[in-house]
């Protein structure tokens, strides 16, 4: 029973939100709040299905769903394996929780609900697809939904941020598509597993010799990496992210920071390890060097830029550039000559942990802005007196971001550093340390403002527009993120076990 359900589950997970996206627009004229309830029912159902699917994959084996009954390599398949299923669950669960924030915090309206569901459907598609061109389509669905959601704030700056993101994001997606075209030229296939086998000399192309040293294949990797790096927001193609995160409505920032770049980084892991495989990097060590270098530079520059910011949302956005730099550097380490299981585990765990921590911090920043109007580091002065609960939540999440144990932030960074040492890439280990110090730099600045400035010293310019606009839903999101951050901090071992089957499969065949 559970097996036959799991067989269908990937298709339902992708199809359900996209179908449901039509209903808020259709029914919104009759009942104004129906969009929110449709979103809630859909995302709750998806969370349940994703949980069942995750259990089934964990106990039995990976689930392959052939869309329309066409078998790959000709047909498109959806794959739920030990990696994708956890991201599917993360997407569904986060989408449900963020809805609690939007109930009073907005944005509202039928168009918002429809686009929100489209975004979730697109992200789910990226997580579950096993086809390179299908991945492009879902990247663009996610992109279009994300641009629209940023522009949901009726301010001209939000439209500017959305257009900037649109242009950079579309160029990135086009670069990715060029890479896919090159892979298609080399192998004649688009299915990830089949392309991987064809590159190794077998598969449907069946050439007999590995294609790893072909210029075409190397160029394909370069284009795909450049395209996905744009979506992940690595330095120097990060410039859309601070604008997008700081100009979007607060609830949208939470979902963007928790999921959009995270899932793009997931796609990068998928393409790097499932399609190109470590054998490609053995023949092309320059690719490993390039990934590690870009990741390391991004981690350093992102942290430094974060220290320099005065507006809270921009500061946290630059912090994301830095954290994704660490994740990409870890991906690079794992492709190195010495197989580093810990580095890959660190990349995956830090991705999931970063989603929880960043979503939580942005939710807390939104709640603080709604209740006190404070949006800059200056205005956070003496916040611990005025809003002790929210200030404590920001403090815990900030320390987790630095990597203070016990927290999920510590586990991720620990595995990344361990992997770097294991594969003798000392530079990465040093950068993890430096970026931790820099993270402490901007987190400590915030804490000092909140806890060690007396109310009489605080500037009186704190705006109090709209009074206390904070809702229970907002606080629920923040508290849940704090709880998860701390509790998962004790579960480093079990988290490793969950992703270990995937790591063994890609690193040791």
């Amino acid at each position, binding site marked *: 029973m559970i097996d036959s359900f799991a067989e269908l589950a990937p298709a339902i997970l992708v199809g359900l939100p996209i179908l449901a996206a039509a209903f808020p627009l259709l029914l919104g004229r009759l009942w104004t709040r129906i969009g929110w309830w449709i979103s809630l029912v859909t995302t709750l159902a998806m969370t349940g299905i994703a949980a069942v699917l995750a259990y089934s994959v964990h106990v039995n084996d990976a689930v392959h769903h052939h869309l329309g009954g066409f078998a790959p390599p000709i047909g498109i398949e959806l794959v739920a394996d030990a990696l994708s299923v956890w991201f599917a669950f993360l997407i569904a669960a986060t989408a449900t929780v963020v809805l609690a924030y939007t109930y009073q915090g907005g944005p509202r309206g039928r168009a918002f609900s429809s686009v929100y569901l489209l975004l979730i459907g697109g992200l789910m598609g990226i997580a579950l697809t096993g086809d390179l*061109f299908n991945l*492009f*389509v879902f990247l*663009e669905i996610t*992109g*279009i939904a994300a*641009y*629209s959601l940023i*522009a949901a704030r009726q*301010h*001209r*700056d939000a*439209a*500017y941020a*959305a*257009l900037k993101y*649109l*242009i950079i994001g*579309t*160029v990135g997606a*086009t670069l990715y*598509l*060029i890479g896919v*075209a090159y892979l*298609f*030229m080399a192998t004649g296939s*688009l299915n990830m597993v089949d392309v991987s086998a064809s590159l190794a000399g077998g598969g449907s192309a069946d050439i007999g010799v590995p294609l790893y040293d072909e210029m075409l294949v190397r160029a394909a990797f370069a284009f795909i990496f450049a395209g996905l790096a744009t979506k992940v927001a690595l330095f120097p193609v990060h410039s859309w992210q601070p604008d997008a995160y700081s100009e979007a409505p607060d609830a949208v920032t939470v979902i963007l920071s928790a999921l959009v770049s995270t899932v793009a980084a997931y796609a990068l892991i998928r393409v790097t390890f499932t399609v190109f495989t470590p054998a490609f990097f053995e023949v092309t060590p320059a690719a490993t060097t390039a990934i590690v270098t870009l990741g390391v530079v991004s981690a350093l520059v992102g942290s430094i830029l974060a220290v320099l910011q005065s507006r809270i949302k921009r500061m946290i956005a630059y912090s994301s550039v830095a954290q994704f730099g660490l994740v990409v550097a870890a991906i690079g380490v794992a492709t190195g000559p010495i197989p580093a299981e810990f580095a890959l585990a660190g990349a995956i765990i830090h991705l999931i942990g970063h989603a929880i921590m960043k979503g939580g911090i942005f939710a807390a920043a939104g709640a603080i802005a709604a209740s006190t109007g404070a949006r800059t580091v200056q205005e956070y002065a003496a916040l611990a007196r005025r809003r002790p609960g929210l200030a404590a939540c920001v403090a815990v999440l900030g320390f987790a971001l630095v990597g203070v144990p016990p927290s999920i932030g510590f586990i991720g960074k620990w595995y990344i550093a361990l992997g770097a040492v294991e594969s003798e890439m000392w530079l990465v280990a040093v950068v993890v340390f430096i970026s931790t110090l820099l993270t402490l730099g901007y987190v400590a600045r915030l804490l000092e403002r909140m806890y060690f400035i007396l109310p009489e010293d605080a500037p009186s310019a704190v705006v109090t527009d709209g009074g206390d606009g904070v809702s229970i839903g907002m606080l629920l999101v923040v508290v849940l993120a704090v709880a998860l951050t701390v509790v998962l901090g004790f579960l480093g071992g079990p988290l490793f076990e969950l992703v270990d089957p995937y790591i063994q499969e890609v690193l040791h065949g």
Partner: protein
Amino acid sequence: MIEAVADRLLYFVVAVLLGIGLYMTVASPNLVKKVIGVNLMQTAVFLLFVTLAFVEGGSAPVVSQEAVAGRHASPLPHVIVLTAIVVGVAVTALALVLIIRLYVGFESLREDVIQEVRRND
């Protein structure tokens, strides 16, 4: 040299179009022209797919009962291009909507003017 270029003429056209599109996107201060540049880039990639579907002496991939034998152009890239065109149209539509909102808000289509106004805010 010339022969090598002539053999790959279509690939060179693709590369040139891609370069022009990317340059427009980066260098033009006019937002509408930036979007046109993005469209040009996308079109170049569509042409790349159409080019690589070409099979020498192949006919259109419409297979009837009698004509299964013989050479056909690869139909898969054509399908990909159709899908990518739809995606491109959606992106362009959204970009133009955003540009209209920017024009209402800033009374300009030039990026440098908009940035100047934002700095003075």
